[in-house]
């Protein structure tokens, strides 16, 4: 698989389209774009430490490695296929190299820590490129069929065909986000704070391990701190603290 570590330039191309000194024709726009990939920068081993905490709920098997390695391998990342309709795909990869999806014990288990990267690949077809190619394809179809206009359904089918054709000339954008699960404390750190990506990792984790990733929030953190019946009742009936004054509100 070919990829170029030139994310800044790639992002510029994706954002602005081709260089301004070339006309935005279908031919000029059809040059393959570099992979939007900045290297394994999110997380556990290198890069900024920005993360959300989760608590792993459920019965963790004694022989975690033996019981789950097969399932991890079954849920590793699979490359996107330009012929398929899927626009994005995610799965597990190695934290040390998100291009490495051949997981084994050594790549996943670091003493009491289970480490995986969730790799997400997405087709990013620049809009000017799609528009230019779609316009050309529409003109060809009209001429071929001797029509004056194209129906809604035919246009949607044409768009899909153009998208597939363009995807064959592009490489998907890739990102990978590390997940570190301390199997002793049941705390998992996931190096992203996007709610959308949280949903993806929660679903993938549950599918792989049969265990739930419960997001940390004041509510779940309070619950884990330990409630007896009296405290739970107090917690359920808690009212916000209000410091506002009449003068302040004015």
């Amino acid at each position: 698989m070919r990829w170029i570590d030139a994310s800044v330039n790639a992002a510029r191309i994706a954002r602005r389209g081709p260089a301004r000194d070339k006309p935005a024709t279908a031919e000029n726009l059809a040059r393959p774009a570099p992979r939007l990939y900045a290297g394994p920068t999110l997380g556990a081993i290198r890069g900024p430490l920005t993360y959300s905490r989760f608590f792993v709920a459920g019965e963790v098997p004694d022989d975690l490695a033996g019981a789950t390695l097969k399932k991890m391998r079954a849920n590793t990342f699979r490359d996107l296929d330009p012929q398929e309709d899927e626009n994005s795909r995610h799965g597990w990869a190695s934290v040390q190299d998100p291009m490495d999806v051949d997981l084994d014990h050594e790549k996943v288990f670091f003493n009491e820590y289970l480490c995986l990267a969730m790799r997400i690949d997405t087709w990013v077809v620049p809009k000017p490129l799609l528009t230019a190619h779609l316009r050309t394809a529409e003109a060809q179809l009209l001429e071929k069929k001797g029509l004056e206009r194209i129906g809604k359904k035919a246009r949607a089918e044409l768009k899909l065909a153009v998208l597939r054709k363009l995807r064959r000339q592009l490489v998907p954008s890739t990102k990978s986000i590390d997940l570190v699960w301390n199997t002793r404390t049941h705390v998992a750190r996931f190096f992203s704070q996007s709610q959308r990506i949280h949903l993806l990792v929660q679903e993938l984790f549950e599918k792989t391990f049969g265990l739930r990733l419960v997001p940390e929030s004041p509510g779940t953190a309070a619950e884990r701190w330990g409630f007896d019946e009296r405290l739970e009742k107090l917690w359920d009936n808690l009212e916000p603290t209000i410091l506002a004054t009449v003068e302040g509100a004015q």
Partner: protein
Amino acid sequence: MTDLVERIERNRFVGREFLLWLWFESETFETNLRPAGGSPCALWFETRMTLSFEKDESVLKSASPAASPEAKEALRQGKLPREAKLRMTNGEHEFAWILRGDTLAFASVAIPAELKDKGDDVHEVFYERMRLLEELEAILQALWGDFLTLRLSEAWNASIVPMLKRFADEKRADADAYLQVKKRILGKKSKKG
């Protein structure tokens, strides 16, 4: 699933109150905090703080935003800290990070790591990073425990909220009176910093 969502969403405002309490403690004890179940540390707010009430926000950026009159004014307007940049020293270790009240998530954490990604064994780099994060989280966890004990006690509304109101009014809190309340609720482990 609904039950889980409810557990996650319930009382999210308490995360902002936790930030408020950290701010109050830091100012009252001149940054020296002594969590009942953890090691003593110095903690203070620096460079950036966002206070919110519904969609109304005050973003304060300065060397010490918590000390600015605007921060206290925001409290009097009913806003609470939604996120803040904190710095903490624990022994020789110094940490800085952004704490988000609504999710208790950590952002841009600076840790006193000695090993580097390039040149050092990748496993050792990883273990050091995790050990330092866990050190930071353990102290926060101890502070969270103290806060919750106080928050769920009768002393919160009876004694601490009036002190917080004085604090919002830019009047110095009576550290001894507050310490007495803490001792009564948390036990004898509470000491003045």
